[in-house]
């Protein structure tokens, strides 16, 4: 198996009252090329923290104490901030739970997508505009030229989520980390967004890392799963393995809750 990104023994700690508390405790996981993988777990299980440490954007006070994150021949934890910044958005990008908050309210959608293109590509102004329209079409937004000139609050929740996906794929990354991408959407929209993810994965040859508490979603969409609780991966494998023959007690409980 050819891993696009592989996390080895990742440990993230926070210092509290002079003591170290482990938020992520020895997590190892491989994300293969052109696949959909998922971290599943309850809140506080360390799945989002793991996702953020891949991008080296941990909140203040949290530090990676040991481990490796291998991507494209580099250990991301060792490379400089400027090299890391060049990779963010270009190689790895992220999608958030609430797209209303993830867009800056004072700029139009088009402007914010263009910002990514300006940062990571050398396209001319007109080429950037064409690319934005392409991207918005790719995420199946019906009226791209209108959406481009809209402010975030003028779009519906589903449209915003699509616009954010368009922003995330703007610089053709190889990996997209999607943190609870559908939790705020209703069920029919969830299904549509999931279809979109699968389509984009096949068309753009990228990998998606889902971070979610929704095992039902995972079982439909993803190829590989890691079940997390208390900062540890308690069980990982193909989705089929996990859903049909769960070994760990926590996984069994999750499955029962379906």
């Amino acid at each position, binding site marked *: 198996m050819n891993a696009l990104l592989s996390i080895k023994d990742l440990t993230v700690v926070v210092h509290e009252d002079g003591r170290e508390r482990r938020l992520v405790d020895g997590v190892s996981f491989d994300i293969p090329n052109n696949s959909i993988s998922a971290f599943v777990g309850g809140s506080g299980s360390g799945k989002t923290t793991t996702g953020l440490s891949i*991008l080296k*954007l941990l909140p*203040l006070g949290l530090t990676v104490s040991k481990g490796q994150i291998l991507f494209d021949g580099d250990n991301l934890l060792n490379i400089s901030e400027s090299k890391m*910044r*060049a*990779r*963010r*958005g*270009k190689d790895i*990008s*992220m999608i*958030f739970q*609430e797209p209303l*908050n*993830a*867009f*800056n*309210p*004072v*700029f139009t959608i088009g402007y914010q997508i263009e*910002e*990514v293109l300006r*940062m*990571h590509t050398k396209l001319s102004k007109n080429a950037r505009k064409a690319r934005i329209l392409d991207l918005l079409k790719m995420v199946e937004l019906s009226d791209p030229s*209108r959406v481009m000139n809209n*402010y975030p609050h*003028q779009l519906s929740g589903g449209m915003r989520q699509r616009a*954010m996906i368009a*922003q*995330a794929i*703007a*610089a053709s990354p190889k990996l997209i*980390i999607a943190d609870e991408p559908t939790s705020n959407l209703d069920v029919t929209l969830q299904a549509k967004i999931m279809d979109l993810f699968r389509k984009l994965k096949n068309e753009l040859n990228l990998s998606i890392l889902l971070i979610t508490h929704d095992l039902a979603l995972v079982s439909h969409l993803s190829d590989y799963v890691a079940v997390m609780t208390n900062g540890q991966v308690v069980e990982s494998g193909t989705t089929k393995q996990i859903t049909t023959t769960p070994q760990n007690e926590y996984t069994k409980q999750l499955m029962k809750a379906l």
Partner: protein
Amino acid sequence: MIKQKKYLNEFDIALRGFRKNRVAMLCVYTLLFLYFTAIFADFLSPYSYKNEDRNYSYSPATPVHFVDEGKLTWPYINGLELTYNEYHARIYQTDRSVKHSLKFLVKGDEYKLLGFIPTDVHFFGIEGEGRLYLLGADSRGRDLFSRLLYGGRVSLSIGLIGVLISFSIGLIIGGAAGFYGGKIDNLLMRLCEMVMMVPGFYLLLALRAAVPDDFNSVQVYFSIIVILSFIGWAGLARIIRGMCLSLRERDYVLAARTLGVSDFTIIVKHILPHTLSYSIFAIMLSIPGYILGEAALSLLALGIQDPFASWGNMLSDAMSIVRIKFAPWILWPAFFIFLTVICFNVIGNALRDALDPMLKSEGQN
């Protein structure tokens, strides 16, 4: 396709609210008028700022007459005759036999319009021997009205340029401190406190003393601006830093970072614009500080040097109560300082009301 309604953003709405405030709009027009007169000071004034005639020291205003022997005539002024009383005090008497009619577009002192068009045409004035003093003369017999216009150039521009410099510093330093936090924040904020710790006026004097005294007037002008801005940025930086501390936790800042946007772009484009509703009125409210600071320095003869005019150094003439008693018109610069300061304050307050959604009585429309 349905035609899209033009979307009103926050500032359009604020601008609407502001336009409804009539007092503030009056202040805006007043300031625009003052700035207009300052820009075209050399054209609008009958004399240049250094055109002096010591025979007319502290000459009173020469009233403009429209009626001559019961008949309406072209506006004219009478001549002045200087005599001394028994205590050798100057007495100016109107000489009704001499008439100088007011003329438009007369030739006078040479100047460069807008700095590059050499000409000697003035908007109005008189020709010949007499002197036209619309508001009276100062100690050297220079026209107070002309000098007020020229003085406005210094006093009105110093606030704008000063605020531009200090706010750029304040926004960048406050933004960086708030965004990065930790050691950088600590270092920058202690720096701010060091600047704020020293009483402003003493710092002003100390910094002024550090400026070489063989500077020419332009250099003095800019060094005063730099000194005033150096004192002004710290307070703003602290407040902006506080706002940035909370703004940097917003999801869109994290989102921008996950997309590889540089720190500088994030601070300038994604964080600082959200502090604008505060900084816009803070800017308005701090401009008077620069005008008053310049006035204070010039009053102590540390600012703009004679013969160049600023409202502050014109006022230094009015430091003696005796002079004010005999020539009260030398207080005119104080009136213009007062007018400008109050206009900026009213506009600043109106902007705050318009920009603060908490105070807004009407909903978004």
